[in-house]
Each structure stands twice: as structure tokens, then as C-alpha cells.
């Protein structure tokens, strides 16, 4: 049985692959003398984590969608719409909690519409969410009267504060929100029937149907849940900016998708994990952070992240080829 230990090693590598990538990125900057001192500080790590919250929340839902074999191009527009809704409500005098809930619910509704159109019209998710990308962005601008919505400062704005109150929280409440939901989603995917159905639909939708899975209902649920996460991310965006900005997060859906893919998600469905996606988010955030400290211009960051995406996916494919 010489194959056993080898198989176990393979399995360990599958789980640890993205993690090793993250350590590698951190190690690079930790060994560059110019930034070493500033980079390796706890305060810097906290600020990286805070900057990751919005993409991380989006990636929680996107992981679900990508595992099921779909894609959501409307995620970033949805985030902007939710941030505008929350600001609008609070500005109009609604209690902060109501503003927060409204933002999340509107995000969920956008997801519900996505899922319903995909299943009822039998259109591919790429097309439906491409359309929704424009629709949600347009709605956000319309509601905001094509400008930023100012809102009075409330506790909602402290969700993304780097030094939180009360102090025992240590990190921004938004980070804790991400951690809690990441754990919930990881359990949902691995230990519930819904989670197994998501994998089955992504692996082979015909098989899923054959096995009695209500594929349409499950897909609508998937897009709705992802929409709720975009809504929550939108509220975090509002919290960070303290205004509702309809032009915020343009192109962010590609960062979210990239994070999921770097974390082992397959665009052909059936594969992906919450842990991997979260590591994917951190890899990108640390890269941006390190590059900024180095004083490298934006375009260098863009090139590096582009290379990372291609390298990560290539490594993933090589691993697969070995498996089969």
C-alpha cells in the first residue's frame, strides 16, 4: 500500500495549496528590508483584514454560485445598490438597524431576480447577471439622484472602524461578521443536504435532476443567498464611506470572482471551498498592501494580480491532471 501516504500527501496539498500561496506572499514582503518593519505589524494585518471585508462577503456568496456552475457579474453593482439603499433610508430618518436590514434585503431581492430569470427563462447565468449588472447600477444611480447620499453618522458606520468600540472586540466588527458567516457557510456546504446539492448541480446538473434534486429551486436559493451577502457587503461599503455612493465598487465583481478562483473554485462547477476563497481574498489584499508600501504604482499591482490568477489556476489544473 505505497499509494496511501502519497494519496494523503496529495489531499493535504489540495487543502493547503492556497494557504501556502498566502504564506508565500506574506513571506516575500516580510523579507524585503524597506517594508519589513511596517508590513509585519499587527496594525497592518488588521488594516488588511478590514480592507478585505467587502470582497470577502461577496466571495462567500460567489463561492456558492461558482460551485453550482454559475457566475454572478452583478455582484459589485448589487453592492453599490445596497449601500445607496442603506444610506437613503438612514438619511430619510429610519433607524440605523432598519437601514441595514433594507440594504441586505434589497441585495437578496436582486439575487432572487437573478435566480428566477436563470431558471425560468433558461438563460445562462453570464447573460442574466450581465444584464443585472447594468440594471442594479442604474437603479442605484437613479435612487441616489446620480450623486452621493450623505447620511448622519450612526453605529452602522462603526462596523468598519479600525479601532472598534468596545475595545475588547480587537478588530472591526465587520471582520467578525465575515468570520462568523464564513464558518456558517463552510458548515452549510459540507454538512447540509443543501450544500451537497450545490456541489451535485455544479458537477452534473442532469445527474442532480435524475437524483430528485429540485434544481430550479436550489438555484434560486443559491442566487438569493449570494444576493443577501452582496447586500451585507453593500452595508459595509456604506459603513466604510459614511455615504451612499452609486459609483462605488465598479469592477469589484472581478476581484470577487478572482478570489474564489485563486482559492480553488472551478468555473466549470463542482469545486470550490469557503476556506479557499477566504484565503484567495487575503492573498489579493496582502499583495495590494505590500505593493502600496513598496511605493509601486497601481499598474504594477494590477499586473502582479493578473499573473497570480493565471498561475493559481494553472497550478490547479496541473493538480487535476495528476488526479485523473
Amino acid at each position: 500500500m505505497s499509494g496511501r501516504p502519497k494519496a494523503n500527501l496529495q489531499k493535504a496539498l489540495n487543502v493547503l495549496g492556497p494557504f501556502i500561496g498566502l504564506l508565500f506572499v506574506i513571506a516575500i514582503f516580510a523579507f524585503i528590508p524597506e517594508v519589513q518593519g511596517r508590513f509585519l505589524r499587527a496594525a497592518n494585518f488588521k488594516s488588511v483584514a478590514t480592507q478585505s471585508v467587502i470582497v470577502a462577503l461577496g466571495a462567500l456568496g460567489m463561492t456558492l454560485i461558482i460551485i453550482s456552475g454559475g457566475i454572478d457579474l452583478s455582484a459589485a453593482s448589487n453592492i453599490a445598490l445596497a449601500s445607496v439603499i442603506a444610506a437613503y433610508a438612514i438619511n430619510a430618518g429610519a433607524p440605523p438597524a432598519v437601514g441595514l436590514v433594507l440594504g441586505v434585503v434589497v441585495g437578496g431581492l436582486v439575487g432572487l431576480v437573478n435566480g428566477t430569470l436563470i431558471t425560468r427563462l433558461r438563460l445562462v447565468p453570464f447573460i442574466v447577471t450581465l444584464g443585472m449588472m447594468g440594471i442594479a447600477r442604474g437603479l442605484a444611480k437613479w435612487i441616489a439622484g446620480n450623486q452621493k447620499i450623505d447620511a448622519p453618522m450612526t453605529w452602522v458606520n462603526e462596523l468598519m472602524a479600525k479601532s472598534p468600540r468596545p475595545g475588547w472586540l480587537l478588530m472591526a466588527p465587520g471582520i467578525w461578521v465575515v468570520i462568523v458567516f464564513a464558518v456558517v457557510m463552510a458548515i452549510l456546504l459540507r454538512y447540509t443536504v443543501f450544500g451537497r446539492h450545490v456541489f451535485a448541480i455544479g458537477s452534473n446538473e442532469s445527474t442532480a435532476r435524475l437524483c430528485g434534486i429540485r434544481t430550479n429551486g436550489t438555484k434560486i436559493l443559491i442566487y438569493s443567498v449570494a444576493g443577501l451577502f452582496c447586500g451585507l457587503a453593500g452595508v459595509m461599503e456604506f459603513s466604510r464611506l459614511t455615504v451612499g455612493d452609486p459609483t462605488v465598487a465598479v469592477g469589484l465583481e472581478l476581484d470577487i470572482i478572482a478570489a474564489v478562483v485563486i482559492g480553488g473554485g472551478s468555473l466549470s462547477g463542482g469545486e470550490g471551498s469557503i476556506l479557499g476563497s477566504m484565503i484567495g481574498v487575503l492573498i489579493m489584499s496582502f499583495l495590494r498592501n505590500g505593493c502600496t508600501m513598496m511605493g509601486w504604482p497601481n499598474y504594477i499591482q494590477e499586473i502582479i494580480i493578473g499573473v497570480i490568477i493565471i498561475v493559481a489556476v494553472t497550478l490547479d489544473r496541473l493538480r487535476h491532471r495528476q488526479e485523473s
Partner: protein
Amino acid sequence: MSDPSAPPVLRMERVSKAYGATRALGDVSFDLRRGEVHALIGENGAGKSTMMKVLSGAVPPDSGRMTLEGRPYAPSGPLDGLRCGISMIYQELNLAPHLTVEENIMLGREVNTGGWLDRRTMRARVRETLEFVRHPEIAPDVPVRKLGVGARQVVEIARALLARSRILVMDEPTSSLSQEDSLRLFEIVRRLKEQDVSVIYISHFLEEVQKVADRYTVLRDGRNVGSGTMEGTGLDALIRLMVGQEVKEMFPRVPHGRGETVVALYGLKGTRMAAPVSLALDRGEILGIAGLVGSGRTEMLRTVFGLDELEGGALVVSGVETGKAAPWVRIGQGFGLLSEDRTGEGLALSLSLADNITLSRYAPYLRFGLLRLGRQEKAAGDWIARLKIKARGPLQKVLGLSGGNQQKVALARLLHQQAEVLLLDEPTRGIDVVSKAQIYEWIGELARDGKSVLFVSSYFPELLGVCDRIAVFHRGALIDVRETRDWDPAALMAAATVGRAGNG
């Protein structure tokens, strides 16, 4: 016209081909004369398609030699075969649906000067060819997807003619054609003969073969069991050659008795079924469904299971009439379906054995809404041991298993699901003999335990060996149901290929 004394256009001598341990072709010799239509017949799996793959260059033979026009012929690939003048017209047509008739016919052979298309010349050639095959009404600038199946086939033939093919292989050309289109196709075949083109004609419809072909060759179990001239050869003789002597021990029988009717179809009609079907299935019965590929058997199973939409008739389950129902509802009623398309539909290849086996019934492993993965894994392990599935363990992906073991995983899912009515669509297709015998035994045990089985197969010996009754489909309609003892191989073959049962 064909002249017996002239040297053959194509000669295959003692050609053999094996896939792993399975011998697909054993020492097959074959002559094709200039300008003749030569019928190649045999049951599914007899080796016809392997022989044509060797001929076209898609697979190299293990041994034996071929000569084309007297010269040695060893194609390096399908393109080489085509260049040597051999064209294949497959059941699934090889046309680009968005391109026009003309673009399809000229694809890869565009007339051009320095890369610029010479549309006028091409148009003239296409028209000339379409006229030759007596279909001048097909417009060259219509996209192929707008044509019917018959017209598409004509386009394929025109394509082969423009490639100056000397040999044309037609694989089941009429299986999806209407009567009228079939007659026009025979007319085209006659005109091809006049042009000294040789045609290898593969078909299960024996009466049609008798009409069209000059000579025949029958394959059975990868061997040439008889060739001759069609004139003076009766249907009976052909059927006898196809069926041969049966090996009975292949089919272990498990004694079982039949109970009350469990499922009854009254004029059931699905959107993709050609005709309504009435049929009853008893508790503890194995009911075989015979017929050729595309004869409507799969469509009936899928309609029963709710994968195809029901548009007429009634489905009575345990005395209760049920209407339209989705697959998950049918599963609740006790149905389970084994798909004929193992990799495309039957299994989620990138998931583990454990997930594939338990996918249709997670309930036993749930506590407070959460799955107990250890139990799921252990249960899957038990099924792997029971069905003797060769795998590293329950967490291995199904992707890496052999075809036979994959099929066992699909079957394990139905057993794990505890389905009462099993709809099995070609459950033994493409798997080895030992696994086949095991599957027959399990089917027998299922019947003994009071389950009901609908067993669709194109391999008639297994139906005769395993089933209590056998129903036959021909061109979309159920034409006959009898107790298995009232069928014999020849009668079954006749019913499926000709559409009327002999006297048994």
C-alpha cells in the same frame, strides 16, 4: 455496376482489434467491389463500428492488412482516410448548424485565389452536386440548422461526393428519416452506384437492407460469420446468422414470483414519444423492453420518470392515477431511473463515490439538519463491498473508475435509494462479461425481494435470459408484449428490425 470478376476496390484481410481484454474484431476479412452496395449487419457490439473506425483510420488495427485499389492502405488518421477517398456519414451528423448549406459542403475545400473566396465557382459546384443527388430544391444559402434531418443527410452526402469519395460508409442512415425521405435516399444510393461509388450500408432494418444492398456481410462477436449476395437470401437466414447459438449459462436466474400490478401506463404519451404506450408492470416482475436504438424505449422511461414532459394518457401507480410529476415526486413514489448515458447524466464524475451513491437519499445520515459524514462514508463503503466495486475507497472520485465499476456505482445509488420500481436503461452497455453476469443476478434478486424492473436493452440475449416478459418497440411504437417463453431470438430480432413478429 458491380462486376464479380473485377478486383475489389477495398480488401480487408484478417483484421483484428482488441480494447484491453475485450476483442472487438477477430480476423475479419472483407471485400468491397466497385459500384456495389454492401450491407454490414450484426447486433449491437458485434464489431461493426470498430470495423468502420479501422477503415476510416480513426483507430489502427492490431493486425491484418488492408488494400485500396490494389495498393496497401494504412491510414494515419480520419483525415488521411478521407484523402484516400473514404467518407463516413454518421448517425449524428457532422455539420456546422450555423453555416449555410454551401459553406458546409465546401468546408475545408473552399475554392479560392490567394485566400479570397471564389463564390461563383463554389455556388456552381454545390448546385451541380445537389442536382445530381436529385435535391435541387435545397437552397445553398440556407443555414443547415433550418433543414430537416433528411435534407441534412443529403448535404452530408453532397459533401462526400464533392470530396471525390470512392467509398461511402452510411451508418444507420434511415434511423431518423421519414418513409418518404428514406425512399429518396435509396434513389440517391442507386445513382451513386451508377457513378461507380461503392457504399457500405450499415442498418438494423433488414427489409430495407434487402431492398438496397447487392451483397451482405454479417458480423457476430467481432467475427465475419457470413457474406453473400442479397438476391436469394431470406430474412430468416440473415437473422439466424446475426443471432447465432446462445450461451445460456451467462444468465444466472433467481427464482421469483409475480404479484399484483404496481405500475400501469394507459396511452401514456410524452412530448418526445412518437406514439402513446399502454403497458402494465407487476410486483416482482422483470419486464424487458426490446427494440433498436432510437425506437422510443428511452423516451418512454424518461416520460414515466418525469424527465420528459407528459402530454397525454395516464400513469397509475399502485392503483392511484398520477398526472405530470417531476423526478423528485417520482422518487417519492418509489421510482428510480438508471440513465443510458452514464457519464453525461448518470453520474456526477467529479464527486466522490459516497456522494454519488447517497445523492438520492440523504435522510438516514441527517441529525438536526446536519449530515453525519462518517455514517455516510461507512454506508457507501458497505455498498462498495457488496457490489464488489473496485475503488480505493468511498471518498475517491468516480471519474477514475472503469466503465463497469462506474455502472455499479450508478446501480448502487438505486439500491441505496430503496426504489420499488427500477427503470433500467441499457444497464449493461459497455461493461465486461463478469460485471454483466453480476448485474443480471442483482436484477433477479431485486425481483425476488418484490421490486419491479423495467429493463431496456438493445442486446436481446440478455433480455431473453433475464426477463419474465418482453415488450418490443419499433419506430416509436410498442408493437408486441409476450411472455419470454413465447419469444425466441429470431422472432425478437424480426419484431425489432422489421416491425412484425414472426410466429416464434
